[in-house]
């Protein structure tokens, strides 16, 4: 029991500590791909530290919601990230919340962020919130359908069970799982405001989605939101790694060496995932805002097809 709690504690600290590093790594890798030197790997930590010490500037008409929401968003995202087996299965919290809870946590974080964006009443906040919601209306069902596909295959929406089942060797290659994976990756790209859906590095106010929503934030509030965004990227990457490459996860009650190996391999997976992400990003332009529904519609159809195939035949 104490060991389980310890593992859970390590997991929570690990995701929090690794999230800025992953963002730093993607920025660095992207810069190298573009023949630039790029910021140091640890720059996101410094940025967060800088923001935390800075004065938070609030608009005159900001309500209490505007001040509270950064912490809410951060907390919800952190909890969601803590629920995903990264280096070990059998997390204590994992038994209390499943994939659907993760989707719900992320959904409520998004809801509150959109609310905060509209709280001040600037036009950019409104534009960002409306675009974010347009994306969410398609991304969330696609995500849920992917969850259902996984649940149908593994017989549970509980991530540790799914991971254990996927690594058991009885799964084999399945069309529906392939479709679910592609759908999940597409959702992850949209949810993390990456190219081609959004550009995390843009300075063009009119094209922003996520950035437009948080344009009015500063200081510690901005730090919370930035950290939440970094956590979200880590979360999606861990989720994809946990479900589709679960082989290195240490099962409950393994030795220290298994846990260490799991941790090292987890970092390796993140690095590979981050590199593939920036490779994809540098090879593609951002799509027109109204093309995003087509993109996410494809994700939705893929996940739907994946789930339907399972009803047709349990072995597909």
């Amino acid at each position, binding site marked *: 029991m104490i060991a389980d709690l310890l593992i859970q504690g390590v997991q929570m600290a690990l995701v929090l500590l690794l999230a800025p590093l992953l963002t730093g790594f993607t920025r660095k890798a992207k810069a190298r791909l573009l023949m630039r030197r790029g910021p140091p790997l640890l720059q996101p930590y410094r940025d967060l530290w800088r923001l935390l010490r800075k004065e938070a500037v609030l608009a005159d008409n900001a309500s209490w919601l505007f001040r509270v929401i950064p912490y809410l968003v951060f907390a919800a995202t952190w909890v969601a990230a803590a629920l995903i087996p990264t280096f070990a299965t059998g997390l204590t919290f994992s038994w209390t919340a499943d994939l659907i809870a993760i989707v719900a946590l992320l959904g409520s974080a998004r809801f509150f962020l959109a609310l905060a964006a509209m709280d001040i009443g600037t036009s950019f906040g409104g534009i960002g919130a409306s675009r974010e919601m347009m994306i969410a209306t398609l991304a969330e069902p696609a995500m849920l359908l992917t969850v259902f596909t996984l649940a149908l295959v593994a017989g549970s929406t509980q991530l540790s069970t799914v991971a254990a089942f996927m690594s058991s060797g009885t799964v084999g290659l399945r069309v529906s799982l392939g479709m679910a994976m592609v759908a999940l990756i597409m959702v992850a790209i949209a949810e993390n405001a990456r190219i081609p859906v959004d550009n995390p590095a843009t300075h063009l106010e009119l*094209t922003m989605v996520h950035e437009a929503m948080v344009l009015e934030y500063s200081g510690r509030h901005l730090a919370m939101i930035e950290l939440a965004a970094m956590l979200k990227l880590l979360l999606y990457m861990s989720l994809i790694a946990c479900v589709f490459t679960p082989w290195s996860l240490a099962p409950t009650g393994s030795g220290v060496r298994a846990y260490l190996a799991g941790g090292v391999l987890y970092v390796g997976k993140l690095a590979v995932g981050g590199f593939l992400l920036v490779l994809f990003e540098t090879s593609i332009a951002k799509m*027109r805002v109204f093309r995003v529904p087509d993109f996410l519609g494809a994700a939705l159809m893929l996940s739907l097809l994946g789930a339907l195939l399972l009803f047709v035949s349990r072995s597909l």
Partner: protein
Amino acid sequence: MSTLDDLLRGGRPASHHAPWPRVTVDRAAWDAAIEQLAGGHLTLLGLWPDAATVHMALLDEPAQAVGVISLACDGGRYPSVARLHPPALRLERALRDLSGLIPDGLPDTRPWLDHGQWGPNPEPPDYAFLPCEGEGLHQVAVGPVHAGIIEPGHFRFTVNGETVVRLEQRLGYTHKGTEALMAGADLATGARLAGRVSGDSTVAYALAFARAVEAALGVIAPPRAVFLRALMAEWERLANHLGDIGAVCNDASFVLMQAHCAILRERMLRVAADAFGHRLMRDRIVPGGVTADLDAAAGQAMRELVADIRRRFPALVELYENTASLQDRTVTAGMLGPELARQYGAGGYVGRASGRPFDSRRALAYPPYDRLAFDVPVFPEGDVNARVWVRIREVEQSLALVEEIVDRLPRGTLRADLPQPGEPREGMALVEGFRGDVLVWLRLGADGRIARCSLRDPSWFQWPLLEAAIKGNIVADFPLCNKSFNCSYSGHDL
């Protein structure tokens, strides 16, 4: 007999105005000119005040002729050109702000460059944006301070969801009072001021100013200077076009293209710094000639860089062409019809991407372009993609021009002496910058100082077209369209 000839024959010619004629006309002829403009028979090149007179530069495109007509303002008023010919609207609003002359019948009397910051009253007056009413419409205000490091300008969008119903620009934030500073300045100061109107076009402005002075004084620059000027002008065009091609792609979040283009542009600037002593070649062109020579080593460095760009550029063009996601953004975005481009006399890539083949290097060829072979690429589509393609083709043309100029560079002196005018003399010049045709008109006093100088940036006729091009597009596509126009704030605000 061309339309312009008829107009010019009816007026009283100015004594010393070169290279094109200027005549003082009466109201009837002024009105006739406005009708010819409105009818599309003439193109407006510029409109500027000069004490109690207004001058209007006109282009007769079929005849490839230029002329200036002047009207004395009775009681500080004159018949507005914009009343019938909208391209003059902003010029007249600015003219009203800067000179106090009143254009009678001006459809829009709001100040333009004057933001209420100059007079005794420090409070800027409220600026009434044009009303735009309808169900579900709301406004998005952007600028003048932007999230990126760019020049200031305010954009007021009226949108329905994501669709732009109307864009209204407000400019004038970078007004520097250049024309007021010019009045009374000596020629050296004037050349420096001209080179600082718009930083990215400093060569084009300095060249236009120098040519206008030389026209007024009847001086001809030495052949080596003429070729060196063209070399700098083409180098500037190349560097800016390469930067723009990358920047347009960057605004579609295709950073790879920008990374490559920015490297090429930077290498060009470094070679320019080595060759002429300044990255942007500022203050290298002066009335009478040039101040920097090109030695053999620098010429070789230029040749090598051009050869290297020739090797690398086709791969970039291919990358642009074969990236479907990028094509999806640029093709059909920000359409500008050929009628508007012609009506506004849009120069540069804006005009040439909308089927207007005007290039002052060709239509009003000035040396050494009359002796150089080059094509003027024209595309009819009028979208962002076409504006990128005009730049791509112009890069290829300019690379060839640079090679030819370096090869044929004549020997000789760099500067001609400038005589004292002895009497007031006037000159003008139209020079093709990377953005389009820069117009400079000036009058020198008997003492050789500048009495009046007017500098007209190509952006005057391109900014309004951006408003038209964005209509019906989505808000998120504005940065892309804006970058494909890449109008100058500084050159426009003066």
